[in-house]
């Protein structure tokens, strides 16, 4: 039992890709840019909807 739990506690060897500092920085800047672009897209759709519908935006069919 002790032997098994010791084996489980051992840190597993790293598998997969480890990002370098430069890669992490680049990924973060890309993520922020994508978030800003998506946010801008949402704002464009929202404002254009208001412009196109005008006061009718409040009209709801009963």
């Amino acid at each position, binding site marked *: 039992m002790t032997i098994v739990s010791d084996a489980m506690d051992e840190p597993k060897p790293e598998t997969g890709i480890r990002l370098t500092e*430069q*890669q992490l920085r680049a990924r973060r*800047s*890309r993520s922020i840019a994508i978030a800003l672009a998506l946010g801008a897209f949402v704002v*464009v*759709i929202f404002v*254009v909807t208001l*412009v196109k519908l005008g006061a009718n935006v409040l009209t709801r069919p009963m």
Partner: protein
Amino acid sequence: MSVTLARIEPSIADVGDYVALLKPRVMSLVVFTALVGLLIAPGHLHPVIALTALLCIAVGAGAAGALNMWYDADIDARMLRTAGRPIPQGRVTPGEAAGFGLTLAVFAVVTLALLVNWVAASLLAFTIAFYVVIYTMWLKRSTPQNIVIGGAAGALPPIIGWAAVTGGIAVEPIVLFLIIFFWTPPHFWALSLYRTEDYARAGIPMLPVVAGEAETRRQILLYTLILAPLGVAPWLLGYAGPFYGIAAIATGAAMIALALRVRAERQGHVASKQMFGFSILYLFLLFAVLLADRLWGGLAAQAVNLFAA
């Protein structure tokens, strides 16, 4: 059977690399000429819708630039002028550029269609397809007429701007299209005259590479002789005032004078460098003056009347 898996390195591309893929300088000229088409069009477009149209045209132009860099990565790497672009530098993979370009192209066209109108969106889609498929994939590597025919893509933005307002096409934006269309060959051939080795190394059949310098200088003059009167056409056709007419005649005469100097030049490329530099200023001035003329149209005419009285 063995399967070789390509090792995929995590991307090191930052935002600046993706911005570079959009060819910001080309984009700014596209936005400017589209803005002129949009502002000289009759009718009214809500400023928010007009800004949305310009944004879509800008993103569409950027998408075309990214797709061009994806397809041309091999020849970009062999040319000094383009070797520093993100794909030849290994900062962006061709696949990333293709995905980026396609995504932006679809977003730009669909957004323009849904928020502005279908005519402008169809024209934008046609422009992107023409630039990427007809120019980049086909003409650029196969004929010295590449930039002549391919120039149509760069000439379309004023028509898209006009269509965003009116939902149609008319003579006025077609004249602007023709001005850019006939401006493109002398502009690029002046550049290619002093970059001949670069183009030859990349295997691009630019006119000086295929037909020689003398023929290129002759063609620059011929196209400039067509371009200069076309530049004056908006005034002659009555949709630009005398202020524009005077500016177009003066700058057109300067273009012809430079083209004559390029034609006469036997050694060195001083005149062709001047021609390349001035051609950018020429197109910018024509459109800027046309814009000012239309926005404050009354003012110029009134000033002339004042002097005449």
